[in-house]
């Protein structure tokens, strides 16, 4: 489960070694995934993940349980990664700027586009899945930052749209739009028979 129990968080705040280890272990995959989503390469993502956990462990005492712990943490990680991009002189897209600027995707309904290709209904699903994971990685790199981050959070365990909106600091409908458009773009990008 992604969200740690309040008791575990309280023990970690009190400096309990086992609780801190459990907290870090339970969140490291999610934090690294966010960092990968924003930084695009494993080395930078590892740096940002480490920095995020250093900041987390220093500021754990300031967490007041007014929001979900994961929401608080993922927002912290997102901000650290965006700062990291700025420090590296890389372009930083605003998270809410790409929701309304899509390249003609709305010309056709999502249902029509997704139903166009039979490619993913092949019987060799396992093989296709592995191959698709490689293709998806490439396709993801072409998504706007906000869509990629929203999709990443969307696939975390127990993350609701409201939690994603809070973690990204965006309105709920904008987050839904990011996720829908992101899926549509990926569905098209990963289909050989592109009929957009």
């Amino acid at each position, binding site marked *: 489960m992604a969200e740690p129990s309040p008791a575990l968080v309280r023990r970690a705040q009190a400096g309990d070694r086992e609780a801190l280890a459990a907290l870090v272990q339970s969140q490291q995959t999610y934090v690294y995934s966010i960092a990968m989503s924003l930084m695009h390469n494993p080395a930078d993502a590892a740096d940002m993940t480490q920095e995020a956990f250093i900041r987390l462990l220093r500021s754990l005492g300031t967490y007041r349980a007014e929001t979900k712990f994961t929401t608080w943490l993922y927002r912290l990680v997102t901000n650290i990664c965006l700062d990291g991009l700025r420090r590296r002189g890389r372009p930083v897209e605003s998270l809410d700027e790409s929701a309304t600027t899509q390249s003609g995707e709305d010309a056709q309904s999502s249902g029509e586009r*997704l139903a166009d*290709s039979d490619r993913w209904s092949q019987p060799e699903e396992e093989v296709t899945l592995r191959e698709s994971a490689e293709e998806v990685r490439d396709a993801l790199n072409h998504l706007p930052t906000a869509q990629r981050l929203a999709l990443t959070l969307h696939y975390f365990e127990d993350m609701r749209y409201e939690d994603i909106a809070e973690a990204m600091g965006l309105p709920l409908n904008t987050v839904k739009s990011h996720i829908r458009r992101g899926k549509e773009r990926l569905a098209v990008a990963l289909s050989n028979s592109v009929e957009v």
Partner: protein
Amino acid sequence: MQCADVAERLLVDDLRSDPELDQHVADCPRCTHTARKIAHLDAVLGSALVVAPPIELQQRLAQLAVGAARPPSVPWWSRLGQLNLADLLAQRPQMVAAQGIAAVLLALSSWQIFGLLSALHPVVGDVGYAMELVAASPAVVYLGGLQIDLQGLGLWSVVGVFGWLLSEDGLIGRRIASSGLRLP
């Protein structure tokens, strides 16, 4: 329900257990296919976007957690002011033993001080004679030997306490460990 609405809801809705939606997906081959594709897309994206960190990073993060569990480094003289006497004097076996030894040492030292004062000021009564009688008794000879034993015990206790202070859990040892130095 229109097919376009179904695709929209399949793409963004949290709750997929809508009977009307399920019925439409079951009845409409086009939406069945779309639902299958979206499910497949979810599986592929889920495995591509949620990735475990490399082992080296996991090890570094585990070390960070262990490091954070240590209490902040505070000079031992600052911690003296924060000592909680109630905790220190809690009834533990070693504390009971230490308190017993302290009581015996206090009694012996009181007796010596009393004797010294009596020798210096033999004014009230015949204290000197009484002390001579007491000092000559076998019990006092035995106590004299016991006193030497207790002094030795006290001395070694001081050595033990000093060793504990230098150990990893001791006041000085913890400070040395947190500063990155290692004892030889």
